[in-house]
């Protein structure tokens, strides 16, 4: 399985943690975790990625939209998304549904 498929599969099992509040402020997305009492700022592509994730888009659409908007290849996007998701999971900002 290639990177793109890995990410697609993982994204399909990921939702935003219910204790996370978020709002877009211009180009940024600001997050606040009610449990950990931490603020986060997502900028640019990460903000857009979060936005698409929060809207419940299927991975195929997220991937397609991101590649359209940011002119990255499928493999480049997959690598970036994987890194971002790892960080989001580490901060408990998203839930992984097995």
């Amino acid at each position: 399985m290639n990177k793109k498929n890995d990410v697609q599969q993982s994204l399909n099992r990921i939702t935003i943690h219910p204790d996370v509040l978020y709002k877009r402020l211009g180009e940024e997305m600001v997050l606040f975790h009610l449990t950990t009492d931490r603020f986060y700022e997502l900028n640019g592509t990460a903000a857009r990625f979060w936005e698409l994730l929060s809207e419940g888009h299927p991975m195929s659409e997220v991937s397609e939209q991101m590649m359209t908007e940011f002119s990255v290849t499928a493999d480049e996007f997959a690598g970036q998304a994987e890194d971002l998701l790892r960080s989001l999971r580490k901060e408990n900002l998203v839930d992984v549904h097995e």
Partner: protein
Amino acid sequence: MIQLTRRGVESSNRVAVLEQLRADFEARHYFRIPNFLAPELLDFVQSEIDRGEFYGRVHQNIGNDLCLRGNAAFGALLFLFNDETLFRIVREITGCPQIGCFDGRIYRVIPGEGHSDSWHDDRIDQRLVGMTVNLSKQEYAGGILQLRDVASGKIEEVSNAGSGDAVIFRLSDTLEHRITALEGKAQKTAFAGWFRAEPDFLSLLKRRTAVVLKNPADAPRERTVTFEKDNDETNFVTTASRESSLDTY
């Protein structure tokens, strides 16, 4: 109906309601929003406050009270009060200039503890309009917000609000305010602060926020998505230095 929920401010935005609030503000320098905090949000905030810790604070030449050491109650309120819909409503009612952010704190006063407040106008730090939200679990006596016209000495008393109610009041060079001493045994807890012209909310947070998730992919030649931490103080409201900075507001 204007109410703050976890999703932000929800408003029916009925013209008649806004006109009444505008008339209240014009005549008495304040208006009240009953049940401004949605019940589930109020429950969350009060339970977090119960788990929190207060420390003594002295407001130079004004008074002293207790301030909540940072926890999620404050963070959630700060996040949610910085809401464009709320800013728009406040501007429509008060006629104040463009609002950049809301900044505040959770404080507590306890009868018999020597907590006090004196007349002041809060006209610093580009503050435009004041706001206080009652977070007390019990009804308290005294602790009334008073507004005084400096020239005439006329005092307007704002009767105590119910839990979750908000009172928004005018800040002006010609108007001062204070909280009267508590009576009885019940303590008062409130979230109080100011709508400010500057900075914007993101800038306010950046002055305090410890964790910043940056995406270097925004730079054209950088494709790696990583987080960068400004420092290891991952919670801006739990460090002494950060709280000290809050004290200056």
